[in-house]
C-alpha cells in the first residue's frame, strides 16, 4: 500500500503522527538556546614560550624560528603567524575551519615535544593556548563611585565579582579601573645609607616580623594546649615600630628610615564611564555556554547586587552582547511571521477557497516545527542562519502541497469521490513532486559540504532546508491527500460573498491568462526576435557586473563601536587621560546617539585576565561606545564611525586611532577591512615600504583608519654594567640588577592580612627619590662583604631604543598595513590599492600581499562558485533523469542566466554590493528558478504526448501552467520580501540575500515564461526534422 493510500485510509493515524511531530518540535523549540551564529569552533591555537632576558631578535632566532619550522608541518594549517617580543614568543596557528581542534591540539603538542630539546636551556616549556570567540566578554558593567573609590576594588570583589562568578556558565569576572590596596614602605635612600641598611634587609626583617608560628602542643594536667605565636601585624601602623637595625648602640626603627603608605597600587588601569571615573567589570562566559542565558541570569542578579553596595556605588551596563542577539532574533522571528502571512494571503487569493488554503498552509507550520527537532538533536541554536532557513523555506514548502491539491481537485471535478480522488490524484503527481523536491535538495544539500568559514555558517542552512523540504514532501504525499479526502467537497456552491469578492479576482486572473496566451502566441511566431532580445538583456546585464562592487559580509548595525587610541610611546598616563576626556566630552555633545561611552587607560595588572590579554599601557586608550537602538536614530553606525574618524583627525596627540564598528567581532558584521602584508627581512626597507603604502592608501577614497602593525622603536634606559668592575667589587650581574629592581619596582616583602584578604607589602624607594637619572646612578649596591658601591662606579646608564615586536607570518617577517573600507565596496579599494602598489618602487626581497577580509572573501567566493557549479551539475542530473532527455534540462537551465542577470540588475539598482549573503541567495535561485521551467516543460511535453502540435502544446501548456508558476513564484518572492525590506536590528545581514532572490526570481520568471517556450519550439522542431530525415533515409536505404 502506498503512503498516500494508507494515509487516506487511516486519517486518525496520519493526523496523530503529525500531531506527534508537532509536539516533539514544540518541545524541542522550548529547549533551544538563542544565539547569533551557529557554533563556530575555534580554529586558532597559540603557542607561548617565555625566555627571560632575550631581546626580540634573540627570541625570533632561537625560539620562534625553530618552533615555526616544526609546527609548520601540522596538518590543515592555514597560516602560521608569530610575534617575537622581549622575553616572549607568541605563535598563532590558524587552521582550516571545521576541523577538530582537540585533535589538532594533540598534533601540536607532539610537534612541540620533538623540538623542545633544541630550544635554549633557559626557555620555558611552550604553553598551548586555545583562543575562541568565547574569550570575547559578553557583558561589561560600569561602576560609578564617589567616597567609596579608595576601597572600591574590595567592595566590588566581594559584593559583585564573587557572586557573579558563581553564576552557572560565567567563566571569569575581572575588575578593571579599581586599583587594589597595597601597603608601600617608602624608603629614604639617604637615611638608609646613613644607617648602613639596605632595602633587602628591611624587606627580610618585615617578612620575618609578620609571622604567625604554631609552637606545637603541650600538656598541663589532664588537658592538652596548643602553643602559638601570633606575630602578624594587626594594622599597618604597627610596622612603623619594627626595629630594623641598630646604630651607635641605639635601635633604628622602620619609621626612622621610611614612611608607611597604606594606599593603592601605584600603576593601575583607570576607567571612565561617561566621563566619570569609576570601574569596569568584565564578564566572560565559560566556553560553550550560552550568552543570552548567562546575561539573563546576570541581569536578574544586578538589582540584588546593587542593594548590597554602598549608596554611592552605582552599577550600569556598558555592553550587553545578548541585547543584540535578542533583538536580532526577535526581528528575524517577525520576518518569518510576515512571510507566513504573505504566503497564506497569496494561496487564498489564487485558490479562493478557505478549505484548500487551510490544507496547503498547514504544511508550513508542520515542516517548520519539525526542523526544530533537528536543531535540538544536533545541539544547535536558534540563530540568524537557522531562522533565515525558516524564512526562505516558507514559500517553498507549500509548492508540493499545491501541486497535489490541484490534481486532487481536478479529479474531484471530473466526478471522483474525494477519497478516491485523493488517492489517485496524489498517485499521478507523486513522482513529479518527488523529482521537484530532489532538484531543491540538489541545491541545498551541497551547502552542507562547503568548507571554510562559509561552510560553518551555511551547513546549518543546507540541513535545515533539506529537512524541511523532505518533511513538506512527506506531508504533501500523506497529510495533504488525507485532508483533501476529508475537507474537499464535490459540488461547491459559492455564496454571494464569495462571488462579490472573487468574481473580479477570477476575471482578472482569466484576463491575465488570456493576455499571456496572446503574448505567447506572438512570441512563438517571432522566435528570432525574442531570442535576440533575451540574449541582449542577458549580455547587457553582464556589463552591470562592473558597477556592482564586491565585499565579504555586509556591515551590521549592532549599536556598538570600539575605539582604540594610541599616543606616542612613553606618554604619561595623565596626559592620555586628559586628552581622551576632552574627546569624550566633544563626542557626547556631538552625538546624542551615544548612550554609554567608557574608556580604559593605563597598564593592566597581571591578574586581570581580560585586560592583560589585550593591548595595554600608559599610552593606550581603549574605548567602548554604545549607541541607541538602530531603529531609534537617523544616522547609521557606519556614518557615525565615519564622523568620529574625522573628529579624530583634529587630535594630533593620537599617533594611532582606530574606530571599529560592531565591537571587535571580526569578519562577520564588522566593517570590512583590507590587510596589506609586506614581507621582507630588512627592518628599514619594509618600514619605508609600509610608510609609503600607508600614504598611498590614505589618498584612496573610501579608506579610513590606515594603520601600520609594527610599533615604533621604544626608548628606554639601560644600565650597562662593566663586568670587570663588578668582579672587582665581588658582585655579579644578577645581584646588581636585582638591587636596581628592588629599589625602583620594589620588592614584595610580605603580605598584610585583614578580614581574610591579603595585600602586598612592598618596600621601595620613596617616589621623590626615583625621578631622575642621578637617582638611578646613586643606587648603592652591597657585596657579600657588606661593602657598598654606587651604580655609576660599576656601570653606565644609557638611553637606547629597543627594536619593536618582530612579527612573522608563514615563516617570513611581515608588517601589516590595515585599512578600514568605508562607504565604498571593498573591491574598489583593492583595485585602487593594487594600482598604487604597482606604481611603487619596491626593493628586492620585499613583497606585498593582500590578506584579511579580502583573502576571506576571495576564499569564500571561490568556494561558493565551485558550489554553484556542483549544484548546477546535480540539478541537471536530476532533471535529465526525470525527463529522460538531455535537451529539455538544458533548455530549462537557460532560465538561470536570467536569474543571474536579475541578481545583478537588482543589486545595481538597490546599490547593494555582491557579498557572501547575496551569493548564497543567487545559489538558492538555481533550485527555485529551475522549478518553474520544470513545471512548464513538463506540461508542454505532456500536451505533445497527447497528440497536440508543437505550437499548440506550447501555447496551451503555457496558458494552463501560468497560474501555478506565478503562484509558487509569488509565494517565494513574498516570503522573501520581509527579509529584503527588514529594518530591525541585524537586518543588514540578510537584506542582500532577500534582495538577490527577489530580483533574480522576478526577472527570470518573466523571461522564462517567454524564452523557454520559444527555445522549446526551436529544439522540438529540429528534433522532428531530424527524426523525419532519418526516417526518409532509412526508407531510401531499404529501397
Amino acid at each position, binding site marked *: 500500500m502506498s503512503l498516500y493510500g494508507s494515509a487516506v485510509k487511516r486519517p486518525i493515524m496520519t493526523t496523530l503522527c503529525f500531531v506527534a511531530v508537532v509536539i516533539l518540535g514544540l518541545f524541542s523549540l522550548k529547549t533551544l538556546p538563542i544565539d547569533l551564529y551557529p557554533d563556530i569552533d575555534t580554529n586558532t591555537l597559540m603557542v607561548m614560550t617565555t625566555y627571560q632576558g632575550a631581546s626580540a631578535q634573540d627570541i625570533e632566532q632561537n625560539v620562534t624560528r625553530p618552533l615555526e619550522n616544526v609546527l609548520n608541518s601540522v596538518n590543515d594549517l592555514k597560516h602560521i603567524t608569530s610575534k617575537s617580543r622581549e622575553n616572549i614568543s607568541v605563535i598563532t596557528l590558524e587552521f582550516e575551519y571545521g576541523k577538530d581542534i582537540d585533535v589538532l591540539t594533540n598534533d601540536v603538542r607532539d610537534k612541540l615535544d620533538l623540538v623542545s630539546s633544541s630550544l635554549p636551556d633557559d626557555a620555558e616549556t611552550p604553553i598551548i593556548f586555545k583562543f575562541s570567540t568565547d574569550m570575547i566578554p559578553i557583558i561589561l558593567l560600569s561602576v560609578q563611585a564617589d567616597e567609596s573609590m579608595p576601597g572600591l576594588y574590595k567592595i566590588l570583589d566581594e559584593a559583585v565579582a564573587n557572586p557573579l562568578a558563581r553564576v552557572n556558565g560565567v567563566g571569569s569576572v575581572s575588575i578593571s579601573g579599581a586599583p587594589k590596596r597595597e601597603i608601600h614602605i617608602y624608603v629614604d635612600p639617604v637615611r638608609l645609607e646613613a644607617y648602613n641598611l639596605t632595602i633587602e634587609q628591611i624587606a627580610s626583617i618585615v617578612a620575618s616580623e609578620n609571622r604567625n608560628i604554631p609552637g606545637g602542643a603541650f600538656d598541663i594536667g589532664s588537658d592538652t594546649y596548643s602553643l602559638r605565636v601570633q606575630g602578624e601585624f594587626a594594622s599597618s601602623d604597627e610596622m612603623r615600630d619594627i626595629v630594623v637595625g641598630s646604630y651607635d648602640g641605639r635601635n633604628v626603627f622602620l619609621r626612622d628610615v621610611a614612611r608607611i603608605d597604606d594606599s593603592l597600587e601605584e600603576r593601575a588601569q583607570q576607567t571612565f564611564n561617561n566621563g566619570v571615573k569609576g570601574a569596569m567589570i568584565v564578564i566572560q562566559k565559560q566556553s560553550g555556554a550560552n550568552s543570552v542565558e548567562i546575561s539573563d541570569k546576570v541581569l536578574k542578579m544586578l538589582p540584588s547586587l546593587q542593594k548590597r553596595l554602598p549608596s554611592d556605588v552605582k552599577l550600569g551596563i556598558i555592553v550587553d552582547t545578548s541585547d543584540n542577539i535578542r533583538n536580532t532574533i526577535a526581528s528575524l522571528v517577525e520576518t518569518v511571521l510576515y512571510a507566513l502571512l504573505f504566503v497564506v494571503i497569496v494561496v487564498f487569493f489564487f485558490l479562493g477557497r478557505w478549505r484548500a488554503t487551510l490544507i496547503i498552509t498547514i504544511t508550513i507550520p508542520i515542516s517548520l516545527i519539525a526542523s526544530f527537532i533537528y536543531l535540538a538533536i544536533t545541539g544547535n541554536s536558534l540563530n540568524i542562519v537557522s531562522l533565515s532557513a525558516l524564512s526562505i523555506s516558507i514559500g517553498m514548502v507549500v509548492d508540493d502541497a499545491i501541486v497535489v491539491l490541484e490534481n486532487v481537485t481536478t*479529479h474531484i471535478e*471530473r*466526478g*471522483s*469521490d474525494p*477519497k*478516491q*480522488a485523493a488517492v*489517485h490524484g496524489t*498517485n*499521478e503527481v507523486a513522482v513529479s513532486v518527488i523529482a521537484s523536491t530532489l532538484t531543491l535538495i540538489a541545491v541545498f544539500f551541497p551547502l552542507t559540504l562547503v568548507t571554510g568559514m562559509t561552510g560553518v555558517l551555511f551547513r546549518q542552512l543546507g540541513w535545515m532546508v533539506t529537512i524541511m523540504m523532505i518533511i513538506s514532501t512527506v506531508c504533501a504525499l500523506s497529510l495533504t491527500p488525507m485532508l483533501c479526502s476529508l475537507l474537499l467537497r464535490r459540488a461547491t456552491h459559492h455564496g454571494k460573498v464569495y462571488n462579490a469578492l472573487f468574481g473580479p479576482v477570477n476575471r482578472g486572473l482569466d484576463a491575465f491568462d488570456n493576455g499571456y496566451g496572446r503574448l505567447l502566441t506572438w512570441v512563438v511566431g517571432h522566435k528570432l526576435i525574442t531570442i535576440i532580445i533575451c540574449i541582449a538583456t542577458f549580455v547587457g546585464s553582464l556589463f552591470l557586473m562592473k558597477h556592482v562592487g564586491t565585499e565579504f559580509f555586509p556591515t551590521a548595525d549592532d549599536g556598538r563601536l570600539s575605539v582604540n587610541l594610541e599616543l606616542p610611546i612613553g606618554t604619561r598616563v595623565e596626559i592620555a587621560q586628559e586628552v581622551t576626556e576632552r574627546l569624550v566630552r566633544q563626542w557626547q555633545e556631538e552625538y546624542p546617539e551615544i548612550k554609554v561611552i567608557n574608556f580604559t587607560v593605563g597598564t593592566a595588572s597581571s591578574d586581570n585576565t581580560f585586560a592583560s590579554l589585550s593591548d595595554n599601557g600608559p599610552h593606550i586608550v581603549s574605548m567602548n561606545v554604545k549607541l541607541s537602538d538602530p531603529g531609534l536614530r537617523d544616522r547609521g553606525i557606519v556614518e557615525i564611525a565615519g564622523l568620529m574618524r574625522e573628529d579624530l583627525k583634529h587630535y594630533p596627540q593620537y599617533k594611532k586611532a582606530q574606530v571599529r564598528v560592531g565591537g571587535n567581532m571580526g569578519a562577520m558584521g564588522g566593517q570590512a577591512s583590507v590587510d596589506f602584508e609586506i614581507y621582507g627581512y630588512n627592518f628599514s626597507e619594509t618600514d619605508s615600504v609600509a610608510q609609503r603604502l600607508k600614504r598611498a592608501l590614505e589618498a584612496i577614497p573610501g579608506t579610513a583608519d590606515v594603520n601600520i602593525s609594527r610599533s615604533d622603536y621604544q626608548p628606554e634606559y639601560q644600565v650597562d654594567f662593566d663586568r670587570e668592575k663588578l668582579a672587582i667589587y665581588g658582585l655579579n650581574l644578577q645581584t646588581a640588577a636585582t638591587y636596581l629592581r628592588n629599589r625602583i619596582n620594589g620588592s614584595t616583602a610580605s603580605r598584610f592580612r585583614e578580614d581574610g584578604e591579603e595585600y602586598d607589602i612592598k618596600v621601595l624607594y620613596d617616589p621623590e627619590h626615583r625621578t631622575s637619572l642621578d637617582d638611578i646612578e646613586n643606587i648603592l649596591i652591597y657585596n657579600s662583604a657588606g661593602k657598598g658601591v654606587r651604580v655609576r662606579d660599576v656601570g653606565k646608564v644609557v638611553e637606547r631604543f629597543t627594536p619593536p615586536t618582530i612579527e612573522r607570518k608563514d615563516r617570513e617577517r611581515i608588517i601589516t598595513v590595515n585599512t578600514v573600507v568605508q562607504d565604498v565596496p571593498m573591491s574598489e579599494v583593492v583595485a585602487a590599492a593594487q594600482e598604487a602598489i604597482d606604481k611603487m618602487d619596491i626593493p628586492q626581497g620585499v613583497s606585498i600581499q593582500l590578506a584579511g577580509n579580502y583573502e576571506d572573501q576571495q576564499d569564500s567566493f571561490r568556494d561558493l562558485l565551485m558550489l554553484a557549479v556542483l549544484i548546477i551539475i546535480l540539478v541537471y542530473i536530476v532533471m535529465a533523469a526525470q525527463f529522460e532527455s538531455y535537451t529539455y534540462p538544458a533548455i530549462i537551465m537557460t532560465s538561470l542566466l536570467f536569474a543571474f542577470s536579475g541578481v545583478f540588475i537588482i543589486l545595481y539598482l538597490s546599490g547593494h554590493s555582491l557579498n557572501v549573503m547575496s551569493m548564497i541567495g543567487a545559489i538558492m535561485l538555481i533550485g527555485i528558478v529551475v522549478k518553474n521551467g520544470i513545471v512548464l516543460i513538463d506540461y508542454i*511535453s*505532456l*500536451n505533445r*504526448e*497527447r497528440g497536440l502540435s508543437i505550437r499548440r502544446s506550447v501555447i496551451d501548456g503555457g496558458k494552463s501552467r501560468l497560474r501555478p508558476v506565478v503562484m509558487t513564484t509569488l509565494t517565494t518572492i513574498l516570503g522573501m520580501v520581509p527579509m529584503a525590506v527588514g529594518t530591525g536590528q541585524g537586518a543588514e545581514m540578510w537584506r542582500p540575500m532577500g534582495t538577490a532572490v527577489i530580483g533574480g526570481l522576478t526577472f527570470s520568471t518573466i523571461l522564462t515564461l517567454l524564452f523557454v517556450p520559444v527555445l522549446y519550439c526551436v529544439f522540438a522542431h529540429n528534433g522532428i526534422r531530424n527524426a523525419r530525415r532519418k526516417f526518409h533515409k532509412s526508407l531510401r536505404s531499404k529501397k
Partner: protein
Amino acid sequence: MKAILITFDQAHYDHIIEILDRNNCRGFTSWAQVSGRGSNDGEPHYGSHAWPSLASAIITMVDDHRVDTVLGRLKALDDERPKLGLRAFVWDVEKSI
C-alpha cells in the same frame, strides 16, 4: 446466468462494489489496474505521463433477472459522473462448475 464485464475509472470502484452488494451479487473477479480507452470519447486511461489515470475491471456472474437492475444502476452512476468513464458488457454463461 449472465456474465457482466464492467470496465471503469478506478475512482468508481467502491460504488460498483456497493451496487453489486445491494443486488445480491456476491461473486466477482476484479483487476485493480487495467488500461484502455473508450470507443467514442473520454480520456484514455493509460497510466502514462500524458494520460495518468487508470481503469479497473470487474467481471461478475449474476442471475438473469438481476442484470437489468444492475445495468440500470451502473448507467445511473455513469450519467452522474460522465467524465470518469464506465462501461458494462453482458453475455451468456454457458456452463460453470
